[in-house]
C-alpha cells in the first residue's frame, strides 16, 4: 500500500465536507442566482443533493472492491489498459480541479484583497503549501481538516447569524414563478460542485471502517448542502437575485455588508482567513488524490515522488487555463457541469458499476467484495 495511514469515517466525512464547501460557496451564489433567480436557494439545495447519487455509486463500488482505490478497481473491472485510461482520466480531473481551485482562489485574493500582487504569487505559495501537506500524507491532511473545520463552520455560522439583521426575506419571492425548469437549470452547477465527493473513491480503502463510507459521504454532502443553502438564502435575502448576479463574489460583499453598531464590522478578512484554510485543505485533498492516482496507475512504489511534478503542473495550469476570471466563471457555469457530471461524477462510476454487475451476474466473475461481510 502506498499510504499507510488510516482515517476514521468521521474524519473522512469532515475532510470531504471541507473539500466540498471550500470553493462552492465562493462562486455558486452568483451562478445559480443568474440561472434560477429568486429560487436560487432551492436550486442550490436540490443540486447539492446530487452528490448523494455519486456517493451511493462510489460507496457501493468501494465495498465491492475492498482495499482498492478507483484507480485500482478500474483496472480489475475494465481490464488493464482501459482501466489505466480511466485512472488517468481521474488523475486529470483531480489535477484540473485543483488547478481551477487554485485559480479561483488566486483570483479572489487579487480582486478582493491584494489588487497589486500578481496572481502567481498566491498560486505558487498555496500549491507549495499543499505539496508539503501531501508529502506529509493523508493522516496529516485529515488532522488539519479536523482543526480547520471548527474555524470554517463557526465563522460561517457567525457571519450568517450576524447578517440576519440585513435580511429581507421577501427578496426570495415569488417562489417558482417560472415553474421548476429554472430551478433545475440552476441546480446543475451546485450539482457539479458536489460531484467532487468523488474523492471518496480514492479515500475509501484508507477508512478504518470502509462500510461507513456511504454514511460519511452522505453526511458530508448533506452538511455542505445545508450550509451552502443557508449562505445562498442569506445572500439573496440581503441583495436580491439581480444584485447578487452582478457581483463577482457575492459572499464577500455579503460579509462586508455586516455592520453591527459600527463595531462588529469588516468581517471580510475573517472570511479570507477561513477560505485560505478551507481552500488549502481542498487543494491538498485533490492534489493527494492526483498524486496517489499517478503512482497507482503507473505502478510506482511511492506517491511522494510525483508530488513535485504534479505541483508544477497544477501551478502552471492554474495560470494558463483561463485568460481571466470572467472566462473561469463562464467555464464553470456553462461547460464544466455538463462535462464533469456526465463523465467523471456520474458517467464513469456508473460504467464501472454496470460492468462490475454484469461481470458478476452474467459471467460469474468474483471481485472479492461482500463475501467477507
Amino acid at each position, binding site marked *: 500500500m502506498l499510504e499507510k495511514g488510516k482515517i476514521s469515517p468521521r474524519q473522512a466525512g469532515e475532510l470531504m465536507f471541507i473539500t466540498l464547501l471550500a470553493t462552492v460557496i465562493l462562486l455558486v451564489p452568483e451562478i445559480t442566482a443568474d440561472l434560477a433567480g429568486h429560487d436560487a436557494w432551492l436550486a442550490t439545495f436540490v443540486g447539492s443533493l446530487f452528490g448523494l447519487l455519486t456517493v451511493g455509486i462510489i460507496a457501493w463500488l468501494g465495498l465491492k472492491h475492498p482495499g482498492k482505490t478507483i484507480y485500482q478497481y478500474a483496472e480489475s473491472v475494465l481490464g488493464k489498459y482501459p482501466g489505466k485510461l480511466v485512472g488517468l482520466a481521474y488523475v486529470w480531473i483531480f489535477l484540473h480541479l485543483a488547478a481551477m481551485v487554485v485559480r479561483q482562489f488566486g483570483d479572489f485574493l487579487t480582486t478582493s484583497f491584494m489588487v497589486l500582487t500578481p496572481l502567481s504569487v498566491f498560486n505558487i505559495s498555496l500549491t507549495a503549501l499543499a505539496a508539503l501537506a501531501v508529502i506529509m500524507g493523508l493522516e*496529516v491532511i485529515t488532522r488539519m481538516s479536523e482543526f480547520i473545520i471548527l474555524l470554517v463552520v463557526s465563522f460561517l455560522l457567525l457571519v450568517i447569524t450576524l447578517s440576519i439583521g440585513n435580511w429581507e426575506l421577501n427578496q426570495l419571492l415569488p417562489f417558482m414563478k417560472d415553474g421548476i425548469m429554472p430551478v433545475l437549470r440552476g441546480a446543475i452547477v451546485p450539482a457539479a460542485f458536489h460531484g467532487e465527493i468523488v474523492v471518496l473513491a480514492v479515500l475509501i480503502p484508507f477508512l478504518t471502517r470502509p462500510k461507513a463510507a456511504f454514511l460519511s459521504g452522505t453526511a458530508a454532502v448533506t452538511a455542505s448542502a445545508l450550509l451552502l443553502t443557508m449562505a445562498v438564502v442569506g445572500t439573496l435575502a440581503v441583495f436580491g437575485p439581480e444584485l447578487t448576479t452582478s457581483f463577482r463574489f457575492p459572499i464577500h460583499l455579503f460579509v462586508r455588508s455586516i455592520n453591527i453598531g459600527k463595531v462588529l464590522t469588516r468581517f471580510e478578512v475573517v472570511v479570507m482567513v477561513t477560505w485560505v484554510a478551507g481552500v488549502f485543505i481542498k487543494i491538498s485533498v485533490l492534489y493527494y488524490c492526483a498524486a496517489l492516482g499517478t503512482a497507482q496507475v503507473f505502478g510506482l512504489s511511492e506517491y511522494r515522488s510525483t508530488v513535485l511534478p504534479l505541483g508544477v503542473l497544477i501551478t502552471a495550469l492554474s495560470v494558463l487555463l483561463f485568460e481571466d476570471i470572467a472566462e473561469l466563471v463562464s467555464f464553470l457555469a456553462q461547460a464544466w457541469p455538463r462535462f464533469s457530471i456526465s463523465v467523471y461524477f456520474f458517467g464513469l462510476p456508473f460504467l464501472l458499476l454496470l460492468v462490475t454487475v454484469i461481470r458478476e451476474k452474467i459471467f460469474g466473475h468474483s471481485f472479492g467484495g461482500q463475501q467477507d461481510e
Partner: protein
Amino acid sequence: MKNAFSILKKMLPKKGASKEEAKPKPKQKQGNTASLSARIDYVKRQLGSETKDVIIRQFSSSNNKVKFGLIFIDGMVDKEIIHDNIIRPAQSDIISNFAPKLTPDNALQLLQEHITSGGELSVVPGIDQAILMVLSGDTALLIDGEQKILIYGTRSFDRRGVEEPLTEAAVRGPREGFTETIRTNTSLLRRRIRHPDLRFESMKAGRLTGTEIILAYIHGIANERLLEEVRLRIAAIDTDSILDSGYIEEFIEDSPFSIFPQIEHTERSDKAAAAILEGRVVIIVNNSPFVLIVPTTFFQFIAASEDYYERPYIGIFLRLLRLVVLNIALMLPAIYVAVTTFHKEMLPTALLLSIAAAREGIPLPAVGEAIIMEATFEVLREAGTRLPKPVGQAVSIVGGLVIGDAAIRAGLVSPAMVIIVATTAISTFAIPAFNASIALRLLRFPLIILGAVMGLYGVIFGLLLILIHLAGLQSFGVPYLAPLVHGTARDIIGALARPPWWMALKRPRLLAVGDRTRQAKNMRPHFTPPDERELFHEDTGEK
C-alpha cells in the same frame, strides 16, 4: 531489579565480554577471585589509588577465622549505619551469638541472616557489580574466601529538601516539588498513589554518569505498547553523560528538529501523579528535579494543575484565557504589521486615524518597528532572568519603563507598537509551560516578516505551515494535536475546558487502556439540605 541488572551488565561491555571470551587471561580474572587482597588491589586499581574518598576498611571476625574488606565512599554513606550494623556485629561477639561460629564457608549466610543488620541488603556475584553499587553510595562487604559480595544500602548524602517548585507556582494545591534525589521523588509519587499497581521501573543511562532513570506508571492503566516504546528508546541511549532530564528528552523525542516541545516536564509532584493516573508514563531522572511526562500533547501546555483544584468555572475560564493568550503571543504583532501595512481599510476610521497620527514621523516601517521592539524585549527578558532578583528588577525598570518611554518621546517607535509588544510579552508569560511559550516566541518573528511581505495572507500562510507541522507531529504515537484531532467530544471538552470532577467519567481515550472509568456515575453532589437532616437545631434557648 532484574531489568536494572541487565542494564548494569550492558554498562560494562568490555569487561563482560572479555570475561566470557578470554577466561584464561590472568589480569582480568583478578577481580573475580575469592581472595580478599587480590580483590582489594583490583578495586584500588579500578578506582585509582589517588582517589581519597574511596574508603577500604579491612577487619577480622572475633574468632579471627574470617577476614573482611569493607568498601564505601566517604560522603555518600551513613557512617553510623556502617559502624553499628556492619562492622561492630561482625567484629565482636557481644552483639550476636553467631559471630563466634564464623568460618569462610558459612560467613556469607551467617552475616546475611543473623549477624549484620540493615534494611537493604543484597548479594552480587562479582566485584564489578559491587563497585557500581558502591559508587552509588552503597557499602560492599567482601569476605575472604567467598566470591559473592554483600551490598548494604547505606546511601546518605546531603540533599535539598522538598520545596515549593519555583517554576510552577500555584495559588492552590500541593506545594511539594520534586528534588534532585530520585528516591525522594519516587516517595513523593508513592505517597500520592498508594496502590500496588504503581510501578517504578529502573533503568540506567550514561556511560560515565551512570544515571538512574525510573519509569513510573500504573500497571493496567498505562498502555503496554507505550511502555515498551519508552523502554526501547531509553535503552537505546548510548551517551557518556546524563546530567538532567533534558538530555533524555532530546534523546527520546519523536521529531528532534521540531521547535515544539514534544515531552512535557514538570517539577510538581501532583502534576506528575495526575499524569500517571491518566495513563501516561513519567520518567524520573536522578539528579534532576524535572520529571518528563510522555506522551505529551499540545493542549497539555495550556493546562496548569491548579485548574483541577479550583472551582470548575475558574478552571474553564483560565483554560480559555490561555488559549486566547497563546494566539495573541503567536500572532498579534504579525497581524498588527499586516493590517497597518496592507489592510488599513479593516480598521475602524477613528482607530486608523489615531494609529496614523501616532505613526507620524516614525522613521521605520511597521515591520522594522515590530522586530526591533520584539528583539529589545527578548534581550530585556533574558537579561532579567539570569541576574539576581533585585538587579533583575532594576533592569526591567530601566529597560521597560525608561527605554520604552524615551523611545516613544524620541519618536523612534509609535506608542501603538509599544502596546502591541507589551501585550504580546505579557501574553507569553501567561502560558504555563516555559518551553511552549519559547516556541511561540520564536515563531513570532517569521510571522511578522510574512505579515510584512504578504499581509494577512502571509500570516495565514505561516500559520498553515505551522499547522502542517503540528498535524504531522507525534509524541510516542499520540498525535500532538490530540484530542482536538482523533478525539471524542468528551476528550475535546476535557482538554479545552475542565469539567467538574464528578463529570469527568473517563480517562483520555488515546492514553489509557482497559477500564477507563474514573468516577462512578451519579457522583453529582445532591445531598439533602442540612436543615432537613436536622444537623442544626434552631437555638430555642431550652438547652
